């Protein structure tokens, strides 16, 4: 308060102060704009750089080939297949558990210490570094449960990693269901479960799907936990079952980028382009699904 008063007195005593303050404001405005535009510039440069290096290496053969000692013959097929299988399995595991937990917390759980504890626990899990999930996966799925270094072990690890995000976004979607709809449903004499499946989930599903797809796309780009779980960096066969060892796009990119031969860096850039295209496609699906369902809700 005293600062403002001093400023005011100075303003009355010295009208020139206003001009200086205005200049200061202009300068600050410019500085802040630069801060914001920094991200845009970096993004543009990053994409340009990757496209420039990777596009000449991108071809049908690159998608169909296996990794090789020779940059020209290197391909991404096993990694692509590994990533897709992993992500599919991760979703199948994490989606029901995540949505179930969200329904439990929002509709079934009592307002008590235990519920508070679960919520706090989920918030904490969301902040655990991804590599720690890898160590959990290594100790529990790979060793204790004997799954080995398989796609299945990797998928369970990834499912636990994305679970907190799916739960939190599903909770938000469920909370957005108007209370009036729920009450109308209960007034018809339905049970809780009938209200959940007949009213709450249909209304909340666009939000739930968007949240799930966004968190799954995070899993697509993760490499650290899978390296700890033991995904191989060199796979010369296409995985055919969930018990096979595997590699994924990010790990393959990491592997290429760490090779001394300069051409492999360009191969890595081509791999990044494929990864970014898949991420873009997945995110577009999320947006399309959300928009489509939302229009239907309005009818």
């Amino acid at each position, binding site marked *: 308060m005293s600062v*403002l008063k001093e*400023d*005011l007195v100075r*303003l009355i005593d010295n009208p020139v102060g206003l001009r200086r*303050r*205005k200049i*200061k404001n202009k300068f600050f405005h410019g*500085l*802040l*704009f630069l*801060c*914001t535009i*920094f*991200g845009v510039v970096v*993004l543009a*440069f*990053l994409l340009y*750089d*990757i496209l420039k*290096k990777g596009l000449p290496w991108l071809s049908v053969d690159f998608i169909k080939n296996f990794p090789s000692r020779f940059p020209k013959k290197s391909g991404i097929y096993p990694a692509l297949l590994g990533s897709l299988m992993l992500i599919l399995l991760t979703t199948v595991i994490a989606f*029901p*558990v995540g949505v*179930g*937990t969200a329904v*439990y*917390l929002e509709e*079934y*759980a009592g307002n008590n210490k235990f519920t508070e504890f*679960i919520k706090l626990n989920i918030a*904490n*899990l969301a*902040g*655990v*570094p*991804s*590599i*720690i999930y890898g*160590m*959990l996966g*290594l*100790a529990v799925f790979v060793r204790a449960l004997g799954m080995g270094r398989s796609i299945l072990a990797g998928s369970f690890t990834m499912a*636990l990693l994305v*679970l*907190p995000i799916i*739960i939190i976004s599903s909770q938000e979607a469920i909370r957005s269901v108007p209370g009036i709809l729920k009450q109308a449903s209960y007034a018809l004499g339905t*049970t809780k479960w*009938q209200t959940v499946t007949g009213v709450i989930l249909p209304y909340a599903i666009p939000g739930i799907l968007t949240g799930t797809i966004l968190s799954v796309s995070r899993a697509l*780009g993760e*490499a*650290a936990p899978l*390296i700890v779980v*033991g995904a191989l960096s060199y796979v010369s066969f296409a995985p055919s079952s969930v018990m096979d060892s595997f590699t994924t796009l*990010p790990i393959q990119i*990491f592997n290429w*980028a760490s090779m001394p031969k300069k051409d492999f*860096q360009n191969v890595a*850039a081509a791999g*990044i382009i494929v*990864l*970014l295209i898949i991420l873009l496609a997945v995110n577009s699906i999320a947006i399309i699904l959300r928009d489509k369902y939302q229009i239907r809700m309005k009818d």
Partner: protein
Amino acid sequence: MNKILFESKSKMQKNERVINKTLTILGMVSIFTTIGIILSLTEETIQFFRSVSIIEFFTSRKWTPMFEPANYGVLPLVMGTFLIVIFSSIISIPIGLGSAIYLSEYAPKKVRKILKPVLEILAGIPSIVYGYFALTSITPLIRSIFPSASVFNALSAGIAVGIMTIPMVSSLSEDAMMAVPDSLRLGAYALGSTKFEVSTKIVVPAAFSGIAASFILSISRAIGETMIVAMAAGSTPKLTLNPLESIQTMTGYIVQISLGDVPAGSIGYKTIFAVGTLLFAITLILNIISRNIVKKYRRAY
């Protein structure tokens, strides 16, 4: 609907009970996850401290667990992580806060509508891509300015981690500033303040708890970041403050060991769990602090 009417009430109640139980079990998966993390980390860590003294772990200045003579001082790894945190914060905190102030106070609606999605895209890019960017673009730039810089160095990785965490600082700080009621802003404008004065003397102090929390969360994220440092920071544990040298972070060490073929039960295998436990503890404490700051200093308007 008809079918529901004919179902007996007791059967329905029984179904509800089963559903309730099932959902409770699903809700407890997250608790089992936490227990699983703690158990799997501590089990191997206790094993580790059977053969290495805890004093050596925290005080020895050398980390050479795979060589003879083996040294198990975690300080070089902690120092490596610390360097990454310093340089990423130098980038992410001012730029993130600056863009948050711009988006919340200065930006016209149209500009905001364009810039916000761009920041979101930046947040959605996998860390492996930032790692590649650090290695192939930032490092050559650094080496052209400082020819003495090594191919792998903490500065390059730190900058990349900083760029990656800008959107996090920016969006969390912006949320905090958006929550400051307009009446406070309007009051200051009525006294003749400029936008600069409203931002720095009214909005930022009022939103400070949320802003501080975003800083701490971004630091916690930088500590846990793995692929960027594994690609660009090097793999030489070193007790140094020179950002142009090759170093190794806690996460970088875990990746290095995981890439090699280390048999379960060996001391090398146990070291990654000891380092992982320390990493888990540090990030957990930071996350709890950030949540408490928000809770304690949140002002209700």
